[in-house]
């Protein structure tokens, strides 16, 4: 059975504030991991203004982690060890209204297991609409794409991310960039 397809909901109510941010953590906590990715929404009804990861293990009462979103780039620099996958993202457009894009919990290609602190690139993806029946909810898939590459996105996180240059992440990201250059 094929099931790696998400669903799209057009929402009447605004969803701002619906996703919890996960437990509060210090940006310099040595157990933090940086998880990031990119989604190209050119073919979607709206751009993305919010996104969240779901922590599927270990069990927690606050499983949703809000991600910082900037022009397709999404990331969190606060994640403890555990298993995660993209849960949903959403946005609004003047004509399209509010949309939420939900990812399936099984066969989710963004599934990630963090066993030690580090930098984890989920990948770059492109939104594609999947045709559905008249009485079915809207569907989409996200296909992996080559660009933007990991290094380009890491540079954006350093340049655009609040507190990133003044935190422990500055050195870690630069070290990763140097590693990618080799």
């Amino acid at each position: 059975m094929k099931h790696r397809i998400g669903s799209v909901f057009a929402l009447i109510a605004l969803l701002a504030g619906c996703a919890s941010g996960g437990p509060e953590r210090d940006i310099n906590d040595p157990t933090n991991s940086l998880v990031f990715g990119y989604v190209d929404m050119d073919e979607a009804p709206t751009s993305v203004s919010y996104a969240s990861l779901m922590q599927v293990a270990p069990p927690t009462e606050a499983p949703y982690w809000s991600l910082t979103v900037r022009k397709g780039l999404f990331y969190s620099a606060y994640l403890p060890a555990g298993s995660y996958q993209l849960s949903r993202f959403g946005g609004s457009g003047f004509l399209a209204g509010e949309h939420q894009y939900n990812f399936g919990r099984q066969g989710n290609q963004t599934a990630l297991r963090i066993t030690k602190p580090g930098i984890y690139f989920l990948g770059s993806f492109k939104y594609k609409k999947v045709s559905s029946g008249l009485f079915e909810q809207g569907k989409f898939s996200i296909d992996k794409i080559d660009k933007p590459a990991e290094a380009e996105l890491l540079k954006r996180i350093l340049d655009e991310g609040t507190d990133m240059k003044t935190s422990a992440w500055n050195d870690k990201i630069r070290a990763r960039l140097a590693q990618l250059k080799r």
Partner: protein
Amino acid sequence: MISRRVGLAAACLTLLGACAGPARQDVDSLSEVGAGETVVVGRIELVPPLRKDEQKIKALNSGTYENRIFLLADVQYRVLVKEPVLADYNGRIEATLGKNFFVRSDRKPFFILGGVLFLDIGGSELNKAYFPGGLKVPIQPGDRAVYIGTLKYHRNEFFEITKVAIEDDYERANAEFKKKFGTKNSLRKALLTPAK
């Protein structure tokens, strides 16, 4: 328009029974079982078991879905290659995970095509996990009650199925069968077999 589509889909889900046709009925007494029918006894387990927080059902009929897997069944063998449609749910077995089920079935072999577990229902969420099928329930003429085994789905935290096993737990099932239907009735062991 999209809002209306979502509304209709949600309504059908709430009334899955009404939209999809009936499930195989649970049996409490052999007097409910007709001349051409058989009681099918078995059990489905997830390994590790489903945690309470892994399923979020916010629906009026939440009991239909909580800790329950829907086994899609048909007398014709076929491979489900895409998301099941409502018609695929006709004649399903609604099994509570980790407990024996006793359901009424026509006295002829049928196939388990796959399983569906609803993970999230409510709000804007509708998430399902799918489980492999391709198994035959080898009912024979004259069978009044058959035991098909414990179907164990091993899975990881992302609901990826890592192993499928059929285990013979006949003694426990038979003890429950005798307690439920009396010691005079016999339960034939007819473990699930690969469909092909």
